């Protein structure tokens, strides 16, 4: 269960996983206010990618929205990573 230390690697790998098999992949966000930690996990029940942080709420939440859009998109097109 690889834990990623850098956001770039995680987001690339996670997006790839979602595109490979959209029906199998799922994204889990776990937030603990008491610990002040946020954990995002992307898995397709074979591979599991995890990223933990206590800072990057905006990035994670933006990425979460991107993946949501990916899932509801009718045509399968690769979402270009929007860097703001």
């Amino acid at each position, binding site marked *: 269960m690889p834990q990623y230390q850098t956001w770039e690697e995680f987001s690339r790998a996670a997006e790839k996983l979602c595109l490979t098999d*959209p*029906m199998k*992949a*799922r*994204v*889990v*966000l*776990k*937030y*603990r*206010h*008491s*610990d*002040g*930690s*946020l954990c995002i996990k992307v898995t397709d029940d074979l591979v599991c990618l995890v990223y933990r*942080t*206590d*800072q*990057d*709420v*905006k990035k994670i*939440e*933006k990425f*979460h*929205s991107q*993946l*949501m*859009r990916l*899932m*509801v*998109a*009718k045509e399968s097109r690769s979402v270009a990573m929007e860097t703001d």
Partner: protein
Amino acid sequence: MVLLEREQFLTELTRLFQKCQLSGSMCITLKKYDGRTKPIPRKGSVEGFEPSENKCLLRATDGKKKISTVVSSKEVNMFQMACSNLLRASMDGLKKRDKKSKTKKSKAVQ
């Protein structure tokens, strides 16, 4: 698992976040959904089922209460904005990405 309408889901989600402030964790799961309402039988085929491409399922739980909603491509814009705002407002117990160390709330968990 309670399946809610979009608006209700957002209201309940806000409530769940507020409840979790003191202790416990919030889990939000996102998955692509093809509109099936019956499980796929092992033998035979599913009758009269057309998988739809443009929906996703969102679930949220605080460990005790579970809520869920389905979002389709038509609603995704509005829902995504509302959801982002809600997440950003609720997940405020984290450190800011500043170089200066601002400790607003006591996060000396070591």
